[in-house]
């Protein structure tokens, strides 16, 4: 189970342990961190990065750390909000430019971010997603202010076209003095190391996770007289919707008992509708449109086979969610997908209609012959693979490691920028770093750090929301713990 909701005291032993007096069980945790997650992408926006940040934060809070999230304002949602367990979210009034990413001038966000970092006594900045301008801004400012930085990359990029050459250069600059980088799969690590010219030793691989309690099988929801293939993805080119439009007629003609359920919305929906129209498949291909995250499970459990046609994918949560619901997964062999599930749970195909049809036919014949394991069995295997607790534990190790490192002083940082990012870009960004530093000095002169109010912690060791137990109960618990040890 993931770290949402209160949960009984027995359900989070680590959090209980971290709260006891330092003397008794101090070996468990040396110290806690004040972590600030920064990304343009957060709730109410929905997606992989958003839920990653939320779930990771919840688990880190459970482990006794102080966590705050900084994102930009979403419409009416601005200012400070508190989520479950006192997770504090700053919605900053920054202009959104494109695809929910803020515009960046590299400087304009410094006053606000500095204020937050100071009043929250942040020690580690953890930025998410290379598409987020705010995340890169925060990294830049954090280094100017001498804070430790961690960056999580959630996506893959190519190297071939002009736009990726430019974004890769910017990533090189942004990550050139970041303490540690986290990638979600080994393929993603290779990609990031190449894109940003990094030392692979400072890149950790920590996969995404899914909440297995949210994705449980329900074999009674599906009709076993027919075979149902489920597809849940945004209907865009990168998700391979074009391939899907070739697979549907091909297989529907071959298997009269085959149905498709397609969840998701996007610009490529029109071609699926055209295919459905042309081959008269209205009763066999259901297009559900956009799904809310909570409805995904109810769609998944209606199917026998899950089909993923993505053309590029760093991790692919969708196939883990589907496998957790007990479906046989058929997927393209792209990006990090081969690393995600063991061979007996996934059928990997080349990204072509022919290969995917063969994969689906293999799954269908296995299903008909009864060779597939029961959904409950698949669920029980998959639920041990990826848990947010595990992710948080491994991320914590990264934080512990980073906290012991020294932040480069200004002169070394400039040297590193110049030597690492190439002569032209290096000098430009070194200049910008100097300007940023002067701006910071100016801000410190206008409002010294000592003048800034220190915020009351919502989470962390002395958090206002951290549940406290009456001394007698705590002691009793302590004794019980020491006995069990």
């Amino acid at each position, binding site marked *: 189970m993931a770290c949402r909701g209160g949960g009984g005291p027995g359900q989070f032993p680590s959090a209980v342990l971290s709260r006891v007096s330092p003397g008794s069980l101090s070996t468990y945790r040396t110290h806690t961190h004040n972590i600030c997650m920064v990304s343009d992408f957060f709730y109410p926006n929905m997606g992989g990065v958003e839920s990653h940040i939320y779930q990771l934060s919840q688990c880190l809070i459970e482990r006794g750390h102080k966590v705050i999230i900084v994102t930009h304002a979403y419409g009416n949602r601005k200012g400070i909000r508190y989520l479950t367990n006192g997770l504090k979210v700053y919605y900053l009034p920054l202009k959104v430019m494109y695809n929910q990413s803020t515009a960046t001038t590299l400087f304009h966000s410094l006053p606000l971010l500095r204020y937050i970092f100071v009043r929250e006594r942040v020690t580690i900045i953890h930025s998410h997603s290379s598409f987020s301008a705010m995340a890169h801004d925060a990294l830049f400012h954090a280094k100017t202010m001498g804070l430790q930085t961690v960056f999580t990359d959630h996506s*893959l*990029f*190519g*190297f*071939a076209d002009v736009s990726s050459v430019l974004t890769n250069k910017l990533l090189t600059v942004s990550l050139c003095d970041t303490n*540690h980088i986290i990638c979600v*799969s*080994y*393929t*993603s690590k*290779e*990609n990031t*190391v*190449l894109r940003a010219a990094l030392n*692979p*030793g*400072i*890149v*950790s*691989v*920590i*996969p995404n996770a899914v909440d297995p309690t949210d994705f449980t099988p329900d074999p009674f929801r599906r009709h076993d007289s027919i075979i149902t293939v489920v597809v849940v993805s945004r209907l865009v080119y*990168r998700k*391979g919707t*074009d*391939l899907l*439009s*070739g697979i549907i*007629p*091909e297989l529907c003609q071959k298997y009269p008992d085959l149905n498709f359920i397609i969840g998701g919305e996007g610009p490529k929906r029109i*071609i699926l509708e*055209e*295919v459905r129209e*042309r081959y008269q498949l209205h009763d066999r291909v259901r297009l559900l449109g956009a799904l809310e995250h909570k409805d995904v499970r109810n769609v998944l459990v209606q199917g026998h086979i899950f089909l993923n046609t993505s*053309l*590029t994918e*760093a*991790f692919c949560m969708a196939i883990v969610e589907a496998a957790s619901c007990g479906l046989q997964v058929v997927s*393209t062999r*792209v*990006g*990090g997908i*081969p*690393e*995600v*599930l*063991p061979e007996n749970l996934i059928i990997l195909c080349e*990204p*072509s*209609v*022919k290969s995917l049809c063969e994969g689906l036919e293999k799954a269908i014949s296995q299903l008909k012959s009864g060779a597939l394991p029961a959904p409950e069995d698949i669920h029980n295997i998959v639920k041990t*693979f*990826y848990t947010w607790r*595990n992710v948080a*534990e*491994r991320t914590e*190790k*990264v934080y512990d*490691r980073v906290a012991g490192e020294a932040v480069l002083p200004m002169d070394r940082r400039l040297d590193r920028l110049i030597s690492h990012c190439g002569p032209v870009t290096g000098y430009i960004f070194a200049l910008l770093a100097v300007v940023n530093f002067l701006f910071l000095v100016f801000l410190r002169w206008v409002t010294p750090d000592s003048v800034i109010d220190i915020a009351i912690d919502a989470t962390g060791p002395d958090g206002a929301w951290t549940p406290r137990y009456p001394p007698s109960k705590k002691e009793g618990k302590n004794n019980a713990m020491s006995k069990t040890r």
Partner: protein
Amino acid sequence: MGTQPVADTEEAKWQKVLYERQPFPDNYVDRRFLEELRKNIHARKYQYWAVVFESSVVIQQLCSVCVFVVIWWYMDEGLLAPQWLFGTGLASSLIGYVLFDLIDGGEGRKKSGRTRWADLKSALVFITFTYGFSPVLKTLTESVSTDTIYAMSVFMLLGHLIFFDYGANAAIVSSTLSLNMAIFASVCLASRLPRSLHAFIMVTFAIQIFALWPMLQKKLKACTPRSYVGVTLLFAFSALGGLLSISAVGAVLFALLLVSISCLCPFYLTRLQLFKENIHGPWDEAEIKEDLSRFLS
């Protein structure tokens, strides 16, 4: 997982999988790291002389523009009688027309299914209309100052060179736009000529050199590369000669331009090829190689 490498499982082999907890730290770098990296798998190796041969398309187009301007200058100065130009143009068009069918043995014509009668009709329609409208063309831009006309012509001819279809598959290529710009330039320049007959012949000549001549060149290049090289050389020298008769400095500069495009640029390109480092790997976005339109047709 776990940050401390475990010593007693030395035989434990690292696997590139995420679902298993492995006795390696998260930032472990295996020997297999980046083993799937491939370089320059789609890169083409260019041969110097092949590139020189391909550059002749650009040479041809530059020369076309040069010849056009030289002819206009001669007309403007009154050194070239319009009847003479019309006669030569008509004769060479006819030769070109016959050649066009001869080169590929009439295959292109069979494929397009276009009859000679249709060709004749469109030629007649075009000539009649241009002739009929030539007084209008002549006076169309009369009120515009000559400097503006020259500037516009220069920009239009440059645009013609930029957007011309040299065979590259790029977004900037637009043969329609390119041809339109050239014709626009010819209309501009024609209006500075003494009489409407001059204007008519100038525009006809522009059509011949900017629309018909590249079509013949393309066919020549595809079917008889040897004679194409000869034609290109001949054309280039005649353009140079024409320019030389007007301005020696211009001719020298133009010759330098031609040499650098046909010899230096290919040399530079083949040299730069050595530095090409195109990285491919499992992170690349997969390409859909099949034709999926058949499902919708």
